């Protein structure tokens, strides 16, 4: 059916054209990052006359980029590990328990899933100030962990509930303690769940703006997002600062995405669907 094939081909071309149109802002961001402010003012849409690397040199230093990346990586990894550990530990007894305690805990988790962080941000700020946790790595790690724990518990409860309970029973018969049953029998089976969850948590923490904006003021502790924000500022925005900072700010995740895109998309959708 050649007629149908031509239709199919045209549809393919149309969809690719639409997708490319959706990517234009990215192309724009990258192109503009290599142009000087004068060039952009004179011709807002042109290609760079030459690659203005000095834009990047300026942004790289001004953002304290290396330090910011290290901070973001450190905070993100700490939160991810802590969330996965505390979440799976809590989910282990909760997954098969129907006592009042378990029910209240699950209810709390459901409430936590629906509560926007703006509801708790005021008291968290006050608590942090009183405990001296403002402007500390520990503070921001705990804040992010608390924000992501409900998701983790919810996620692991579903996953652990699907593990055959004979497995744990058998371990108990072999005189394993509850902790040994968790650590040596259940935890090794949680790999796929942990991978999906970690993806969620990492994306959320890496890109979050609100917590670092409110809880960090020390330049040396800035994450990548907040250093982009502070570097560009909010008055009289200069394109030769904005665009290179935007590119540098997105670069780490875009590189990861380029390498693992299929797994990331599959993981994030599987996680959302669960």
């Amino acid at each position: 059916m050649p007629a149908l094939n031509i239709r199919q081909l045209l549809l393919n071309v149309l969809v690719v054209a639409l997708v490319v149109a959706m990517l234009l802002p990215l192309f724009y961001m990258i192109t503009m990052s290599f142009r000087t402010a004068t060039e952009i003012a004179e011709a807002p849409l042109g290609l760079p006359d030459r690659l203005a690397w000095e834009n990047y040199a300026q942004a790289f230093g001004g953002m304290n980029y290396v330090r910011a990346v290290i901070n973001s990586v450190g905070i993100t990894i700490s939160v991810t590990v802590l969330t996965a550990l505390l979440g799976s530990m809590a989910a282990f007894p909760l997954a098969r328990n129907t006592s009042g305690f378990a029910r209240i805990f699950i209810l709390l988790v459901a409430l936590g899933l629906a509560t926007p962080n703006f509801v708790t941000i005021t008291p968290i700020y006050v608590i942090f100030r009183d405990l001296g946790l403002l402007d500390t790595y520990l503070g921001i790690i705990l804040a992010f962990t608390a924000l992501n724990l409900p998701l983790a518990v919810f996620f692991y409860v579903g996953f652990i509930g699907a593990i055959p309970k004979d497995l744990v029973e058998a371990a108990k018969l072999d005189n394993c303690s509850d902790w040994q049953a968790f650590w040596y029998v259940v935890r090794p089976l949680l790999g796929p769940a942990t991978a999906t969850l970690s993806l969620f948590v990492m994306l959320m923490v890496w890109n979050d703006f609100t917590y670092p904006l409110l809880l960090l003021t020390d330049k040396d502790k800035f994450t990548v997002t907040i250093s982009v924000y502070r570097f560009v500022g909010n008055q009289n925005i200069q394109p030769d600062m904005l665009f290179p900072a935007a590119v540098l700010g997105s670069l780490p995740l875009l590189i990861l995405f380029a390498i693992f895109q299929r797994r990331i998309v599959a993981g994030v959708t599987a996680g959302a669907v669960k």
Partner: protein
Amino acid sequence: MTSYRSMILFTLPAMIVLGMFFVYPIFLTFQMSLTNFTGVGEAENIGLKNYDRIISRSRYPDALWVTVKFTVVVVLIQTLLGLAFAAMLHRLPAVRNFARAALFTPAMMSFVVVGYVWQFIYSPFSGGLNAMLRGAGLDWMAKGWLGDPDTALYAIAFAHIWMFTGYTTAIFLAGYANISSDIDEAGRLDGASSWQRFRHLEVPLLAPSFTINIMLSTIGTLKTFELPFIMTRGGPDGATRTLSLEIIEQLFGQYRFGFASALSIIMLVIVIAVAVFQNWYLRRREDV
């Protein structure tokens, strides 16, 4: 199967973290919302005055209205656009994986980056959008998109939709993967056109994906703060001042901790009410 004692021990670390940074803060929010606390010194109990003020000044219902408009526009367009992309990509295996990944890319970026880049795209003189319009001979359409109260909110909504359409598409495509190919095949054999199959077979069978997409994007947009904060600071003339932005503004702009808490409580009630209603309505719809 696990003893009560080990249940407590296993949940203890999570309980401590959640207790200190989630449960206790929620109680504190309630308590502070009844005071005129300014962050330092003694808080005076003023009963329901904060709530009274929220209802009686038009500024706060206006912020709620802005939030609702933003949410409805984003959820509606993003869901339809994601569905359209997924329906097309379902029929086009050759470009599906490329398109899915490409559309997803903006969701990898932070609100800060997306906000700044779009702010510049919309800017009146050297912005990309106006330059494109002028290039196409549509000079009369060029304007300061974020400076006009009539367009600012929609301009921000568009950036938000741009960011997350790929996410919606991917979820719908996952839903498509769950539809048995037999069903599609049966429709085809019965002579149903592509559109008929879409309308009468795929859309009903995608009900669970609708539930997830609508709930995720609603919860995400009801608390929108970052894009309006970065792109317009709530201006012009409050046209983009969402509820979350108002909370942060009261908190860190005016140090009205008590009042910000009252706004937070209102937000909590709205978000939970909407989530419960959507969950009930959309799940019921799945069973039909």
